[in-house]
């Protein structure tokens, strides 16, 4: 599994454009909000938690449809399935690699986005924590979605339709957590609930993805 993770890392390093594209997409989407709702600082701060999370989840969706499709096209997927790793192990590594190459970099960009949305500085830390957990949740769900839609015609369109509704709980708890931190009340319960969701998805989503890969 370490070997596979190393390979994913090496591949991502050879194609840094994918990671950069997700980061820039995230920043651009958050930059759109001030134009749309007007530059009034109170309004912006009010919508900041939701806007940050929506933008991050959308940005993390971008590279998902190539997650297994690229492997299937060049024959690597068959070889991986015969590599002695189980389908679930492959999916887990894929999900982690996806998070490391998209969710992680989004964390680096989150202070910039938070500043653009006039989120109080005191809430930036919680915002980064929430974004990290929410994107990890999406990476896990998205891996299962990518495995399910593999081979489907227009799987790239189907994938968000499958995955985004499932990400709603992460959206609710995540946005509530950032908002609580911004207004100075206890944010911990919300973030813990989000962490619990992610912890539940950590074993379950790869198992589902692995079964889907086998059945493909």
């Amino acid at each position, binding site marked *: 599994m370490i*070997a*596979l993770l*190393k*390979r994913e890392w*090496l*591949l991502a390093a*050879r*194609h840094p454009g994918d990671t950069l594209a997700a980061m820039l997409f995230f920043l651009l989407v958050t930059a759109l909000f001030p134009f749309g709702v007007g530059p009034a600082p109170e309004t912006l701060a009010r919508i900041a938690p939701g806007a940050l999370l929506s933008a991050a989840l959308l940005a993390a969706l971008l590279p998902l449809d190539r997650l297994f499709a690229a492997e299937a*096209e*060049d*024959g*690597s997927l*068959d*070889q991986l*399935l*015969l*590599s*002695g*790793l*189980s389908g679930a192990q492959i999916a887990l590594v894929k999900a982690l690699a996806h998070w490391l190459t998209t969710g992680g970099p989004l964390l680096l960009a989150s202070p910039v986005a938070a500043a653009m949305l006039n989120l109080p500085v005191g809430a930036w830390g919680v915002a980064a924590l929430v974004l990290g957990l929410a994107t990890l949740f999406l990476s896990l769900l998205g891996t299962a979605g990518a495995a399910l839609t593999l081979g489907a015609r227009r799987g790239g369109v189907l994938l968000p339709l499958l995955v985004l509704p499932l990400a709603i709980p992460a959206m609710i708890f995540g946005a509530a957590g950032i908002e609580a931190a911004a207004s100075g009340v206890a944010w911990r319960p919300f973030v813990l609930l989000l962490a619990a969701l992610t912890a539940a998805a950590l074993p379950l989503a790869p198992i589902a993805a692995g079964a889907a890969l086998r059945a493909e």
Partner: protein
Amino acid sequence: MLLTGANGAGKSTLLRLLAGLVPPAEGSLLWHGSDALADGPAHAARLRYLAHADALKPGLTLEENLAFWARLWGGGVGSALAAVGLEGLGHLPARMLSAGQKRRGALARLALAPVPLWLLDEPSVGLDAASITRFGTLLAAHREAGGMVVAATHVDLPLPGARALRLGGAA
């Protein structure tokens, strides 16, 4: 064993079935008398499957491509490349190789670590005469060591004395 038959006769499907990638619609797959698919990873560990696609990542060099599989399966990258005559090209990204060189890169996976069973789907596509001779040496060494080969092909392969199975077409 040589597997022949018209296009669409089911050669590739049979190989994928033997590899455990597709489940049989009926019947079962036996290895030494016991169900091979009961333990998928154990079955996968005793075979190498060479598909139509070469499974080389275009962005990685030939060495990096092979090094990944070598970490999973064991074996030396340098000797595997030498066995298919690609020594000296290991530093090139796989996308810069010709079709025949990519095919040899895929064949090099066979030379990494010994396993009992090779499943080859038209292994000689795109190879020049010298490469086919070299591939013949690889096959001979594998069979010498007691290895089995099941190869689907339309052309003659350097497999002297192999049994042949002709799949009847849908025609």
